[in-house]
């Protein structure tokens, strides 16, 4: 997360401005420079004149009077009105020219859908991939089609010199062409450049950021493939299924669960996931007034409850000390229901919840695990073990005959 090193590693950051890495930066930076020069000159004229007058014309005795009673000078007054007016109008045109670029994306933009919610961004790529960071290809125009699902947010990319608000149920757009590769991720550093939310949106506003990664074409294509299927991971040239618990852990931060649910027992906006599974709960339920959920209930009932509390949070509300706590915003549930992929993600999260702080938890086994191989791991295949024993028993004569 070291922005400074990223700035120093590249080109053209100045005292005032960070590195500019998009096609929009040139206009913005040159406008900035023009205005900076002119306004600084005027500032020094004003302050300089003021200081000079204070020193030169200071009063030395109480009855010292002014040495001039001039109260008008029409040519001067016209000049000091007309010149600033001309200058500010010039600034207007400079800004306008740059601004027009913002609203004229080229037709070959790649579209990425951006969804803002309290308090994370989700980037949905054209190939169906989704991630909480923005990946773009160097030199390719990108248009972000943005909207929010709860309150106003904004997407700000300082390095690209662009931002716009995300409005609930209305689409806003920005576009840019990245012109440089972003710093690669390292051990300690997620890499990329910052994306900030700049429209106050509640408690997590200062935590609502993301990264934009500008990749070369090959890396970009590879990344898109990876993102499209979170369920598989590559080991060299072999791909294998990601275990549910591992995927759940990734989704926990990627989908923003971490903004409200802690893993270490600390209270937050939502209940902590530590020891959540199979904890005694008091309920008030909309669809079933007699519903209860106890630690002694079986896995199926618990999993059904967790699933429903993600997709229909208000159906069963936990009651504590007579107060019904409301469920979480439905914006989360809508991204975890509906399609088979989303159901799988739900499954992954539930398994992750199950694994948290519960001793004796046995994770489900990924499809392609070698544990399914009865020969390699007979201990996990009792039926074949029994079959083997039966075979043995059948072929071994009883003792004593």
């Amino acid at each position, binding site marked *: 997360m070291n922005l400074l090193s990223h700035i120093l590693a590249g080109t053209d950051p100045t005292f005032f401005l960070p590195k500019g890495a998009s096609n929009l930066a040139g206009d913005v930076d040159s406008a900035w420079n023009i205005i900076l020069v002119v306004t600084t000159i005027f500032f020094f004229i004003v302050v300089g004149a003021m200081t000079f007058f204070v020193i030169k014309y200071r009063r030395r005795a109480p009855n010292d009077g002014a040495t001039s009673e001039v109260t008008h000078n029409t040519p001067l007054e016209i000049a000091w009105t007309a010149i600033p007016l001309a200058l500010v109008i010039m600034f207007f045109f400079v800004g306008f020219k740059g601004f027009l670029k913002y609203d004229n994306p080229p037709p070959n933009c790649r579209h990425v859908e951006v969804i803002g919610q309290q308090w994370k961004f989700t980037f949905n790529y054209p190939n169906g991939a989704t991630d909480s960071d923005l990946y773009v290809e160097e030199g390719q125009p990108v248009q972000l089609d943005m*909207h929010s699902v*709860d309150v106003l947010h904004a997407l700000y990319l300082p390095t690209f010199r662009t931002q716009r608000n995300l409005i609930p*149920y*209305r*689409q806003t757009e920005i576009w840019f062409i990245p012109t440089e590769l972003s710093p690669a991720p390292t051990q300690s550093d997620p890499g990329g450049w910052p994306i900030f939310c700049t429209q106050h949106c509640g408690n997590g506003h200062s935590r609502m950021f993301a990264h934009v990664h500008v990749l070369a074409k090959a890396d970009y294509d590879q990344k898109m493939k990876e993102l499209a299927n979170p369920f598989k991971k590559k080991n060299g040239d072999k791909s294998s299924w990601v275990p549910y618990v591992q995927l759940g852990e990734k989704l926990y931060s990627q989908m923003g669960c971490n903004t409200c649910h802690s893993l270490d027992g600390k209270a937050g906006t939502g209940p902590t996931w530590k020891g959540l599974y199979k904890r005694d709960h008091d309920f*008030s339920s*909309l*669809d079933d007034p007699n519903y209860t959920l106890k630690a002694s209930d079986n896995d199926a009932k618990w999993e059904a409850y967790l699933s429903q509390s993600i997709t*229909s*949070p*208000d*159906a069963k509300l936990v009651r504590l000390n007579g107060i*019904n706590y*409301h*469920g*979480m*915003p*439905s914006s989360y549930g809508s991204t975890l229901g509906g399609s088979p992929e989303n159901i799988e993600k739900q499954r992954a999260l539930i398994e992750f919840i199950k694994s948290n702080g519960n001793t004796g938890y046995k994770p489900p086994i990924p499809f392609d695990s070698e544990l399914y191989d009865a020969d390699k791991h007979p201990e996990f295949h009792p039926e074949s073990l029994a079959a083997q024993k039966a075979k043995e028993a059948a072929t071994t004569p009883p003792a004593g005959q």
Partner: protein
Amino acid sequence: MTTTAHSAPSHPPEGDGHGHPVPATDHADAHGHEHPKFLAHHFDTPQQQFDSGKLGVWLFLTTEILLFSGLFCAYAVYRARHPEVFSFAHHYLNKWLGALNTIVLIFSSFTMAWAVRASQLGEKPFLIALPKGKGQYQQLFRCSHRQLCMFLLSITIVCGGVFMCVKYLEYKNKWQENLLPGELFRPTELPGETARPRDEAKPLAKEGAPPEGLTAGVAATRAASQPAAAATPVALAPEASIPAVGPATRQAPEGFLVEQSQIPRAAIGPAGVSSDWEKAHASRFEEQSVVVTKEQVGPEPYNTHIFFGIYFLMTGLHGIHVLAGMALIGWVLVRTRRGDFGPDYFSPVDFVGLYWHIVDLVWIFLFPLLYLIGNSG
């Protein structure tokens, strides 16, 4: 409207408003003070006081216009974006009651203006007489203008009261048919139908349990903002409380036309992206059509509740101003009875009159904009 001070017979000659003192002999009042009772000490002449008050009142009325202007702006924005909502929903309003209110208010402005004139004439007599021939008159009725003023002010208050009663009737009707703003909008009828009585709707949901599909965020906001008042009678009814509408056979009374604009039905929201509210009320928006005079004109718009939000806000704010006006006229009535006003000093009546005229003027704009939307959509 209001006659100026200059035509009053015994009014002292006007000062120039800039503080030139008026010779004491020109004060025509009986008190004999240099400063008449009604003249505040920081003013030099009654004319200065009157002029200041007049300017002050006009400034205040400007702020009132600007207060309403925000609402007119909201009206303009929503009507421009959703004309079909306005041309559908205004049929829920009864334009005859609206017209009655308009006539009542215009009449009350007339009595108010006359009352200002009457208060100016003070104790001069008011006569109604019949000519009897030969230059003689038969006096039918006589009273002082002050008494006439009291009578006219009372009529004005009564007219205001009539206006508020009609308003109450209209609001009551809206309440009974759940034609309420925002999420409370659950009409039990379509325009022109007879309303179903409210109790026929299914009993409302238990408190504390928001209906399915409604976002928790909204439920939470409501729950949090009404912590003690959980027993609100208009907690949301589950969808099933809305009578299921049958297929497209609903009839409107004869000659009653429900227009639909040619603009495609707005999805939801000003820019046409869907919202959760719509999903919650989905059952009402199955592909129903309203058959009017045996023609299908199209389904009810999604956003009808917008109209009622604007309707209640505008007429509600206006109603509050009518009540305030009635109170002010009552105060002026009390002062008239006490004999405070005369040719020298009648500015409170004048200024309250100006306020009342503005209240009337706002209604004159509200009435056509809300009630008379008409066929052009």
